[in-house]
């Protein structure tokens, strides 16, 4: 695509927010960085420019303005923070792609806060009925964005969403970041994707993967 698209990363100062921002800065995007912890956003901006000196990124104060300006919004916040943000940006993300990266983990990483018949992404879709919610970047750790190839294998990155065009756009974004995109299914599949990461986190804690691990489907 020749036309530069604008992506708002809400929660850009966190580990995942920073990693995603650095990852997408490879592409032809204008990146708007938003976080309540504004002082930490300078760090994100520096990280972006360390890896991509020419990246078009800037800090924006207000999530509403950023969402209004954006073509796509990435919610890089914990599940528990999504509702408050959704309430704020609901009007400005009408018809836009909103990426849900959250895994609704409980405090002990033993399970989810969401009921078994739903997921963080499905809950977000309920909160943003006119947005195109896509589940992505939830099966990848922050470190994976800096090294998307682990042990010689390109990490798979799974996508779930109901809108075909939105899923395709996110697929391109994932390719830009350097992962191998795999379209898993409609938004109900997000539940499985969130569970996959729960398992990976639990295994990581048990086996000391040191938060640098990923999924790879092997096939012929």
């Amino acid at each position: 695509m020749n036309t530069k698209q604008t992506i708002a990363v809400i929660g850009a100062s966190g580990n995942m927010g920073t990693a995603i921002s650095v990852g997408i800065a490879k592409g032809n995007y204008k990146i708007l960085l938003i976080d309540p912890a504004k002082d930490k956003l300078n760090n994100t901006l520096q990280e972006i420019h360390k890896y991509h000196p020419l990246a078009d990124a800037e800090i924006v104060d207000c999530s509403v303005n950023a969402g209004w300006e954006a073509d796509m919004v990435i919610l890089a916040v914990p599940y528990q923070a999504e509702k408050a943000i959704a309430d704020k940006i609901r009007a400005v993300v009408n018809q836009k792609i909103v990426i849900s990266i959250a895994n609704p983990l409980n405090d002990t990483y033993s399970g989810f806060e969401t009921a078994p018949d739903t997921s963080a992404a499905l809950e977000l879709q309920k909160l943003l009925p006119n947005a195109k919610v896509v589940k992505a970047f939830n099966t990848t750790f922050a470190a994976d964005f800096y090294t998307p190839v682990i042990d010689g294998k390109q990490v798979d990155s799974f996508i779930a969403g109901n809108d075909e065009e939105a899923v395709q756009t996110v697929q391109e974004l994932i390719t830009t970041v350097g992962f191998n995109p795999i379209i898993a299914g409609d938004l109900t599949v997000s539940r499985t994707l969130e569970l996959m990461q729960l398992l990976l986190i639990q295994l990581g804690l048990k086996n000391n993967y040191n938060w640098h691990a990923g999924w790879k489907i092997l096939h012929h």
Partner: protein
Amino acid sequence: MYEVFLNAFHEKVPLTDAERAFVQSFLMPKKLRRKQYLLQEGDVCKAIAFVEKGALRSYCVDDNSTEHIVQFALEGRTISDLYSFLTGETATYHIEALEDSELVLITKQAHEELLGKMPKYETFIRLQITGAYIALQKRLTAAISISNDERYKAFAAAYPEILQRVPQHMIASYMGITPETLSRVRRKIVRGK
């Protein structure tokens, strides 16, 4: 965020509150900063833009890299590469914001869905496209059959606000004349008053 669009719609085809809300659910609000592009040549035009606030231009670029302005759009107007939007072929126009702008975008997908679900939308779009066609016919007729002086006068009378907000060299490009010729035309008109 959607008021100018919804009021324009309502003026052409009256809407109930419920219909207004229904249409609104299909609209994408979008802010564009000055000099940012909504569309660049080579991409597919995926949305019609309605200007809530601000100003945009569409233009094409010839083999000598010269820009030719096709259209200006201020508040209340729509702008797109309609050919690309309707056929899915790549766009031949660039669409750029001349001022910080607030737009309402109707994506192809939303457009198709509204056409299928809401006869009032079909009527509204027919009126929009009819208006655009008439404007195009007038522009074409003026371009091939009347003098630069008359064309400028007609343009100034029809779109006084564009003259206030758009630089002269862009007006010249829109008219298909050099900025020098436009200056002469303007001087002549001022003298003639």
